[in-house]
């Protein structure tokens, strides 16, 4: 504890120089910009910035990289909310309620709660890095494939929150997602599955692509199909500021989301997607009865505040195994580790001792970047929200162009563009026949992760299925999943039976 405070003091004394503040500002700005674009994520951006490591000293370069990393997390929610076009997988869930709020004249509060939630989560996450890092990472290492599989089963329960009116339609969507998730090379055997001989499919279908195709392209095509010549209706932008009511409804989700997100980020196979799903589910279940009907209809602010906070706290958590053990648990962390190596620094368990000044400066700059980002993003809310004043036909044409460019940016491949429109057309029909699209994306994210974790666990246990029940943590998570699945129904039955 005392060491951490001394370290932070040292870190801030380095981070608050004019030059380093400049790097942080540049990083935040760049990060916000690339976060807004779908397809181009922080990993690719930092990879493209790697050559600066030949010219710029280590501290400046890492402050820049961290600014990009945090900035992308802020920017990712913007297009999710405004255009229903998530920029990265962690903000897919944000789009569920966020885009509905925007459509109902509440874009301003949705963007504001995302920005402030990101700030709170980023700060809680950075506090976690500073004070809890080594402790939580040792706990996270105790989780093996069996526990991860159970966690993913728990996340599957959250699908029930987005199934919509018909369970049959919802489950069909889920299985379509599971099917899409199977495409590509199987990690445990190296064998290609359902690639139809197309080399581009060997690496699987990108989940951001599918989300953009179903949410944005499908929606646009549907509107074009059903277009009537009625007077073009201009959307209401509504109030930009969050009302007192909005604040009251956001605070709980911000903190719950942050506390949920950080541990998932620290887990070596955790990531940012699972906590956003769990946070969405929790908020949907915990919402006050008078606001419950807003979920899935006009958009509930809790459904933006919680997942967005969870996403950012998880992003901060990802830095913990990287800094304390040298483990790259995400693409971005892997690129940052290779940047360490080009300075001749070998990141590992001894990084804090050998490069204390650098690491603490980096952590201090995360606090700085977080403040810069909220200051940078809040005034932008009004500007962003004004995009919705564009008349619908032009706005949707713009979304289509934007989605196409972003998708091409993922891997410069024409195959991806074909996929975007094929899945977009499927999305159009799903919309027409009332199939919910969110279960597709959830199935696609969780399916492959759950499959690999299950098979890893079974390889380790020599095919013994009881491994999921005999490991105490795994059993506890499974029981929790069971409770989440049947608990609300039992409770509902009990309540209705009471006189």
């Amino acid at each position, binding site marked *: 504890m005392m060491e951490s405070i001394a370290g932070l003091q040292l870190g801030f004394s380095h981070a608050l120089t004019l030059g380093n503040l400049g790097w942080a500002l540049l990083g935040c700005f760049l990060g916000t910009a690339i976060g807004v674009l779908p397809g181009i994520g922080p990993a690719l951006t930092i990879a*493209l910035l790697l050559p600066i490591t030949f010219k710029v000293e280590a501290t400046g370069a890492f402050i820049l990289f961290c600014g990009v990393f945090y900035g992308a997390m802020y920017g990712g929610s913007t297009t999710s909310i405004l255009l229903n076009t998530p920029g990265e997988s962690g903000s897919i869930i944000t789009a569920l309620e966020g885009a509905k709020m925007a459509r109902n004249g509440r874009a301003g509060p949705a963007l504001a709660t995302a920005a402030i939630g990101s700030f709170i989560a980023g700060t809680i996450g950075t506090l976690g890095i500073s004070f809890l890092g080594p402790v939580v990472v040792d706990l996270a290492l105790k*989780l093996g494939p069996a526990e991860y599989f159970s966690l993913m089963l728990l996340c599957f329960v959250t699908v029930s929150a987005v199934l919509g009116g018909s369970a049959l339609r919802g489950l069909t969507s889920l299985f379509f997602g599971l099917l899409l998730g199977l495409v*590509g090379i199987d*990690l445990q055997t190296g064998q290609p599955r359902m690639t139809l001989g197309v*080399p581009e499919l060997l690496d699987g279908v990108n989940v951001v692509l599918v989300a953009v195709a179903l949410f944005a392209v499908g929606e646009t095509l549907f509107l074009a199909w059903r277009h009537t010549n009625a007077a073009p209706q201009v959307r209401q932008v509504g109030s930009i500021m969050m009302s007192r009511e909005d604040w009251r409804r956001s605070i709980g989700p911000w903190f719950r989301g942050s506390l949920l997100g950080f541990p998932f980020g620290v887990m070596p196979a955790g990531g940012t997607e699972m906590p956003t799903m769990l946070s969405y589910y929790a908020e949907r279940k915990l919402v006050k009865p008078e606001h419950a009907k807003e979920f899935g209809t006009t958009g509930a602010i809790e459904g933006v505040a919680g997942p967005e906070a969870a996403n950012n706290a998880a992003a901060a958590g990802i830095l913990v195994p990287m800094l304390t053990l040298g483990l790259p*648990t*995400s693409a971005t962390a892997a690129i940052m580790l290779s940047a360490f190596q080009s300075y001749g620094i070998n990141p590992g*368990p001894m990084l804090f001792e050998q490069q204390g000044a650098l690491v603490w400066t980096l952590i201090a700059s995360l606090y700085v970047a977080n403040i810069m980002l909220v200051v940078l993003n809040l005034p932008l809310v009004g500007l962003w929200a004004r995009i919705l004043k564009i008349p619908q036909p032009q706005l949707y044409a713009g979304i289509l162009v934007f989605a196409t460019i972003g998708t091409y940016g993922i891997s410069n491949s024409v195959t991806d563009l074909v996929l975007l429109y094929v899945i977009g057309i499927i999305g159009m029909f799903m919309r027409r026949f009332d199939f919910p699209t969110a279960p597709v994306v959830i199935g696609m994210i969780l399916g492959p992760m759950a499959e690999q974790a299950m098979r890893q666990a079974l*390889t380790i246990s*020599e095919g013994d299925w009881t491994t999921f029940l005999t490991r105490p943590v795994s059993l506890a998570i499974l029981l929790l999943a069971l409770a989440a699945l049947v608990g609300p129904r039992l409770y509902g039955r009990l309540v209705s039976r009471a006189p």
Partner: protein
Amino acid sequence: MPGRRHLLAAAAGLLAASRIGEARAQQRLASLYMFIPAGPGGGWDGLGRAIEQVARQGSLVGSFQFENVGGAGGSVGLPRFVGQRRGRPDALMVAGSIMVGATLTNKTPVGLKDVTPIARMTEEAGVVVVPASSEIKDLKGLLDALKANPGGTSIAGGSAGGTDHITLGLILKALGRSAKEGSYVAFAGGGPAQAAILGAQVKAGISGLSEFAEQIKSGRMRALATTGETRSDPAIPTLKESGIDVVMTNWRGVFAPPGIRPDARDKLVALITELHDLPAWKEMLKTRDWDDAFLTGDAFSAFLTEDVQKTEAVLKEIGLA
């Protein structure tokens, strides 16, 4: 007046130096297209960019153009390089042992036989480790466990069919067991695999030495053996000297497109040889901690054929190829 004389001498020296510089600065290629069948920031990308840096310093090549097409151990990029660059004398692709295994398991119609081998540049030995808390103290302990019960001795590493998996297969074969009996747990990327070993979720792990080096140094993992021909780390024995006749390294090299003329191929070999002889390349190998594994032309082709055969045999036995 000592200054003037020195000045003159210095000027003469400068002139001579610049002439030497000129002689060395004979440009071999005006431009070179460098294809990386992996994302930016990885090992292949690192080798490609290192070649660019040294070739530019030595003025061997005027300008470089890079393209990264990542995915599936190079299986996504390779067909594109073969299709789009056929016959081009000024294109190179970075690839290595990972691609040998990947193209075999993925059953892609194109493989390394479809490109023109130019040179093997670097290699990295693998290392067999156990968690620090493991009851296995040395290589013999692990080998005994593997021999007695290969199914119960779970071993973590990179993607299935990759270098780590092949190494395990070769070890099992050397022990007189079948490669198929191994209990190999594939992880996507070094982070999750390291986490599984550090958390003792698996009995042991195999991966590149550089990937585990810091964990070994800090005492969180115990290194049992390296997989090179000679010791990579003086403190860690090789498999070979421990009586297991297995040598397996992760090598990286450069390839030209298919269908190029023999003189174009020779020109590229000469260019890479010249690059390899520059002091700046030696410097680069040292800073990046790469082992020099320079091999060109027919010797490289012969090595490649052997490597493919060895890999294919193991993969067939495991049932993946």
